[in-house]
């Protein structure tokens, strides 16, 4: 496809407006404590119905990218991560802020995010096509097993308790089977509710499990700490010499993030800690980590930005998301009429290249907005939490209704809000639930196709080395989950200090 066509589409006013809006909203959402990109995108999913697919995708991915930086603003300003993966930034970011250099702390975070974002976009450009060619070479049996593998990996590795993670994934799988079966026309778990004939509606589930529990938490939890250490005037900036001094940990963080982001289950809150420790181990002054050293800011921030980009590669080409936010973005793609998976590059290469080119612009927009507006966003953390909760609630309900103009969806949102709250509070994994719901269709369609081709022989799932090894890895991860549970059982009771 011609690059000029892509450039023409990207520089069209609605596309530019979408990516700029995504960037502004993303920084704001990221800067609000506890409201991560998954919740933000979940709240704004109804916009998919009113935007062109490429515009919708650019809006959400720009939002995701900007929210990753926004999360560091809260971490540096008030020592509260905007999202769990910003936790590693607190150690040195907040310390540098307290040492009287908030502008430098934000500057290091911003530069690392911009560097890693451009590297990540380059990686996406280079890998999107080869990954899609590999995906096209896979057969139905391999795809079905790949879905199972992703689900078990995310279930066992992303959840704080592997057994609960697996249970959440299976619950998501079960939910994905609700509706009319397209092959046999059988009604499965529909309970004669017309609202369920097409399956469990994705948007109300996403909004319900991600956003509504946040409303309850905001109403019940403690008020966020006021921003301290931030002077009235400071400049978000680092010099070229300062940037050169942290180039090594920035590159390290980028590479670690990009590689781990490709692996389902390992792209949650783990990568920034991996790169933080790796940066510490290669540093000439490891003793300075935790006291406000710039290396401790750039490594996890570069990782977060790189993970965000690389996790979209398996999400787009295989339909396997590695983070909760990429799972929500897959949901947004489906709502916008794009089917993630091996055929995406063949059928909608224009959309993918428009996205990647648009991301180059939205990264520049993030850089400019980060330099000019970080001071403003740093103060949004003091928004009254009950006002925030009420506003999120309004957006949840309006969003849930707008999707299909159906009151049933509002009820579903409320129901899944309660389900999501209890599951999360009891240690179950919401990302696994969503992944199960999204991957259920892929797993079932491909498994049944493979079984039809093999005349009902389950040996088809072991016939190729790829599917056999993925299946073995899935079984091993389940055994690992059970082993962890046994080991937990052997541990002494938890002391109050553990909490």
């Amino acid at each position, binding site marked *: 496809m011609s690059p000029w066509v892509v450039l023409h589409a990207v520089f069209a006013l609605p596309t530019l407006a979408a990516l700029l809006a995504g960037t502004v909203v993303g920084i704001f959402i990221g800067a609000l404590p506890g409201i991560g990109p998954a919740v933000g995108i979940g709240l704004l999913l109804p916009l998919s119905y009113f935007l062109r697919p490429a515009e919708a995708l650019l809006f959400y991915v720009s939002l995701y990218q900007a929210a990753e930086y926004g999360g560091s603003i809260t971490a540096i300003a008030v020592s509260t991560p905007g999202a769990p993966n910003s936790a590693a930034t607190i150690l040195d970011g907040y310390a540098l802020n307290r040492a009287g250099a908030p502008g430098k702390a934000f500057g290091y975070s911003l530069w690392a995010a911009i560097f890693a974002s451009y590297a990540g976009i380059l990686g996406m450009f280079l890998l999107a096509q080869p990954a899609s060619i590999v995906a096209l070479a896979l057969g139905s049996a391999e795809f079905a097993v790949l879905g199972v593998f992703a689900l078990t990996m995310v279930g066992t590795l992303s959840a704080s308790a592997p057994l609960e993670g697996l249970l959440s994934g*299976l619950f998501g799988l079960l939910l994905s089977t609700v509706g009319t079966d397209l092959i046999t026309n059988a009604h499965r778990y529909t309970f004669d509710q017309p609202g369920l004939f097409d399956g469990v509606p994705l948007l109300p589930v996403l909004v319900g499990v991600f956003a509504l529990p946040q409303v309850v938490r905001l109403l019940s939890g403690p008020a966020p700490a006021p921003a301290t250490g931030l002077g009235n005037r400071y400049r978000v900036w680092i010099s070229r010499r300062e940037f050169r001094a942290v180039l090594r940990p920035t590159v390290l963080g980028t590479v670690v993030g990009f590689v781990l982001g490709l692996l389902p289950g390992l792209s949650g809150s783990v990568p920034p800690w991996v790169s933080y420790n790796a940066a510490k181990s290669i540093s000439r002054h490891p003793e300075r980590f935790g006291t406000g050293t710039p290396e401790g800011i750039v490594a996890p921030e570069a990782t977060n930005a790189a993970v965000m980009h690389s996790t979209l590669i398996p999400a787009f080409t295989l339909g396997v998301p590695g983070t909760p936010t990429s799972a929500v973005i897959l949901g947004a793609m489906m709502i916008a009429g794009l089917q993630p998976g091996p055929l995406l590059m063949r059928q909608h290469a224009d959309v993918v290249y428009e996205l990647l080119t648009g991301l180059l612009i939205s990264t520049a927009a993030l850089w400019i907005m980060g330099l000019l507006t970080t001071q403003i966003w740093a103060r949004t953390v003091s928004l009254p939490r009950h*006002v925030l909760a009420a506003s999120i609630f309004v957006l949840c309900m309006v969003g849930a209704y707008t999707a299909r103009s159906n009151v049933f969806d509002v009820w579903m949102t409320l129901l899944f809000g309660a389900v999501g709250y209890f599951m*999360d509070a009891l240690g179950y994994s919401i990302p696994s639930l969503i992944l199960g719901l999204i991957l259920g269709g892929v797993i079932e369609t491909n498994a049944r196709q493979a079984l039809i081709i093999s005349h009902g022989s389950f040996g088809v799932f072991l016939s190729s080395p790829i599917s056999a090894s993925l299946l073995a890895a899935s079984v091993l991860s389940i055994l690992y989950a059970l082993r962890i549970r046994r080991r937990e059982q052997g541990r002494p009771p938890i002391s109050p200090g553990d909490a």
Partner: protein
Amino acid sequence: MIGREDERPRQIARRVSFAVFVILGAAAWEQTAGFGSSGGGGSALLPRVASGGIMVLGLVGLAVPPRDRAARRWPLDRSLFIHLAYFAAYGILMPEIGFVTTTVALAVALVVGFGGGVRAIRLAIAEAAFVAVVYVVFTRLFQVQFPRGLLP
């Protein structure tokens, strides 16, 4: 600080959650009998795998009691059930009274009820203005018609 005394209700809640999963899995498995078996493993294939897995893992969870390390520290107390009651009441009343009125009422109630003081009134007005902006954007720009009850 969360001591062992405070962990007990949460431990019980987690055990109850495993029991709920076992019951859910069993009920879902029982339903699969009517799904048919033609077409590549049949309509019942994935529901059986999922419900069977839920039952097995739920039983493992019940047999090997969980430690509280995994659970988050979000409230599981009376205040939570009060909030859930608001939302349930909203779900019931909304079709009768009207989407916009009920949503505004609950949003303002949350702001006033949890804010307190003179500032709460100002914040409630700001919240009502926010709802009005959302309403105008969705009805005018996106042509969404929100359901009416006795009121808009």
